[in-house]
């Protein structure tokens, strides 16, 4: 519920939400000027876990930087690694075996579902419902087990290599992935019954925090934030990369612009990811997952850009090369950085509980904002 800002008492007080606050999912701080429960003004303060990945990128060689990408966003790590390897492969002209690209797409989509599941749970927990989180984590656990079986890690994967993959997938993974798809579809039905249909839940989100397309454009919002506002934008479709053109999937777009629309977009995205995984498993070609000769990474001077659709939106990575062993400059454009930025402007006049629900609907991962 938003009200026009009118301070009747002429008195406001400042409320520090964070850096340690249950709703901020990490170390994020929002300085809010409040009039009672209404927010008059908000200023987001970030940078509490800034690690300067970009400088690390300049100091390390190309392969050494591989593992940093997964530390950016610990929930959807593979999407970020995917962007990095695609960029370097494009710039250095490395051919990637088809099987490797398919496995990348499958694992990225699995990771996207895992990330969305965690967001789903955490979002409902922001609204005060605790059990859905446990159900979501239970489903996510299947994905983590599968990915652990092939990558060796559960969260911060370092699986992709320039030219291919660290190792091939095994039959256990393929069988588990096939089993996972129907189970996940059943779970999604359960979530829709338990949460989406719930009257309390709907009342809390319907019409809350409307974001116009103009605001999305001025702030560069992507992912479900843009798609919930009726913008049909998904890098996988708009700027096809990897083997995504081979798959038949839809981009969910909702025109309500409110928090519920953003929620619906993500829930439907999980179903679409399942479709991609299903097709990927069917189409998975045989062959090597790395080129026979280990590729040499020699990048001609110039600058290169690659955007990928991660679980949190359009992740862009810009590489300025001077032809050396290390990147001359590596810029990581993180999607939640832009998505979070519009919070300040949009939350004015909202009640604090609506603002925090709005914040949850943005799907924040703080290390990804701070880099």
């Amino acid at each position: 519920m938003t009200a026009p800002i009118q301070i009747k008492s002429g008195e406001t007080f400042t409320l520090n939400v964070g850096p340690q606050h249950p709703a901020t999912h990490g170390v994020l701080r929002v300085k809010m000027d409040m009039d009672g429960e209404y927010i008059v003004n908000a200023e987001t303060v970030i940078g509490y876990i800034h690690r300067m990945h970009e400088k690390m990128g300049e100091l390390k060689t190309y392969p050494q930087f591989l593992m940093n990408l997964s530390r950016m966003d610990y929930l959807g790590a593979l999407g970020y690694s995917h962007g990095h390897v695609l960029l370097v492969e494009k710039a250095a002209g490395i051919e990637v075996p088809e099987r490797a690209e398919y496995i990348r797409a499958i694992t990225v989509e699995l990771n996207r579902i895992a990330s969305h599941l965690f967001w789903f749970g955490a979002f409902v927990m922001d609204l005060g419902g605790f059990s859905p989180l446990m159900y979501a984590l239970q489903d996510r656990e299947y994905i983590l087990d599968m990915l652990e079986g092939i990558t060796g890690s559960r969260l911060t994967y370092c699986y992709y290599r320039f030219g291919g993959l660290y190792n091939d997938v095994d039959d256990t993974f393929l069988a588990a992935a096939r089993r996972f798809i129907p189970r996940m579809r059943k779970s999604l039905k359960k979530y829709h019954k338990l949460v989406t249909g719930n009257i309390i839940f709907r009342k809390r989100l319907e019409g809350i925090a409307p974001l116009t397309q103009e605001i999305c454009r001025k702030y560069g919002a992507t992912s479900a934030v843009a798609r919930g506002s009726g913008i049909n934008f998904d890098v996988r479709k708009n700027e096809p990369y990897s083997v995504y053109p081979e798959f038949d999937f839809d981009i969910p777009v909702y025109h309500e612009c409110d928090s519920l629309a953003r929620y619906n977009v993500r829930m439907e995205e999980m179903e679409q990811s399942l479709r991609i995984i299903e097709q990927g498993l069917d189409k998975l070609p045989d062959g090597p997952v790395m080129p026979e000769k280990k590729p040499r990474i020699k990048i001609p001077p110039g600058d290169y850009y690659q955007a990928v659709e991660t679980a949190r939106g359009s992740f862009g990575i810009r590489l300025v090369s001077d032809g050396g062993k290390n990147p001359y400059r590596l810029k990581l454009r993180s999607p939640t950085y832009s998505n979070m930025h519009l919070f300040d402007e949009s939350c004015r006049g909202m009640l604090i509980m609506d603002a925090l629900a709005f914040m949850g609907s943005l799907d924040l991962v703080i290390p990804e904002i701070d880099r």
Partner: protein
Amino acid sequence: MSLTLLNVIVAVVIAIAFAALNAAYLVWAERRGAARIQRRPGPNINGPFGLFQPPLDGVKLMAKQLMIPGDVDKALFMVAPVLAMAPAILSFVTIPFSEIIVAHNFNIGVLMIFAFASMGGMSLLFAGWSSRNKYAVMSSVRAVSQAIAYEIPMLITAITVVMIAGTTDLMGIVHNQMGGIWHWNIFPFKNGLFNPLMLMSFLIFFTCSLAETNRAPFDLGEAESELVAGFHTEYGSMGFGLFFMGEYANIVIGASLTTILFLGGWDSPFALFPGVWWFLLKVYLLIATFIWIRWTFPRTTIYGLLNLSWKILIPLSLFNLLLTAGLLKVF
């Protein structure tokens, strides 16, 4: 005279013991129940089924240092937790567990319980205000508006029942419902009086007792994802422990009152065991529903909660009051 006094003192001691025991083991039940809903075992290390967990938690709470932040209003800060616990215990005095197990039966029992219940809202206001914490103040303001919004429909539904029974005496209300399950107030046929809306009244009363005890989905006072811990943010040790116990004691009171007003008190549908067990069974079933609801739903918003009260519960309960009054006149 002195015998009555002695009687009351003994009753209060028993009530405290009962409340404390209930609070401790309701926490255990809540944790186990929540865990089962979420498909995990819950506390299961200390003792069989984790049954030693509550006393150990109590010891831990009591062993902690009683921290009083420097800027607080000390008197109010200390009074608030006591004020949360005391009315709940005093309410136990008048609750009839069976024909004979009642500490002291007042002929204004319903009013007395409501009077004590509104003290609970005051304790939250005191706690939040004296803490000098912005979150706590916001929480206490919410708690007060919530308490006001929900006491009205709750009282109106209670008055409906009082009108049917013709007495404010809790014993009398139960007596009025004796004689088989169809005589309970929850069902529409009652002593020749046909009122189709009594089930709705029951639901209204149940919802209000959820809100009145600050239980999810109406736990706006301590909405942990917004207000950190709400009114008890600054409390630690037994201060927090008292709030906690008070909350659970209030739940027991709320469930008992619902049982007495709508579910026929100790009246047994079929006489398998004595009435007091039937009473406790009904109360604990209601409490189980409280727990079940808490772990299923997300929290409402403050305006959603007020809308629910002023736009739905109050009109409907008023309508039922009028209807009942009319029916009483007719039959």
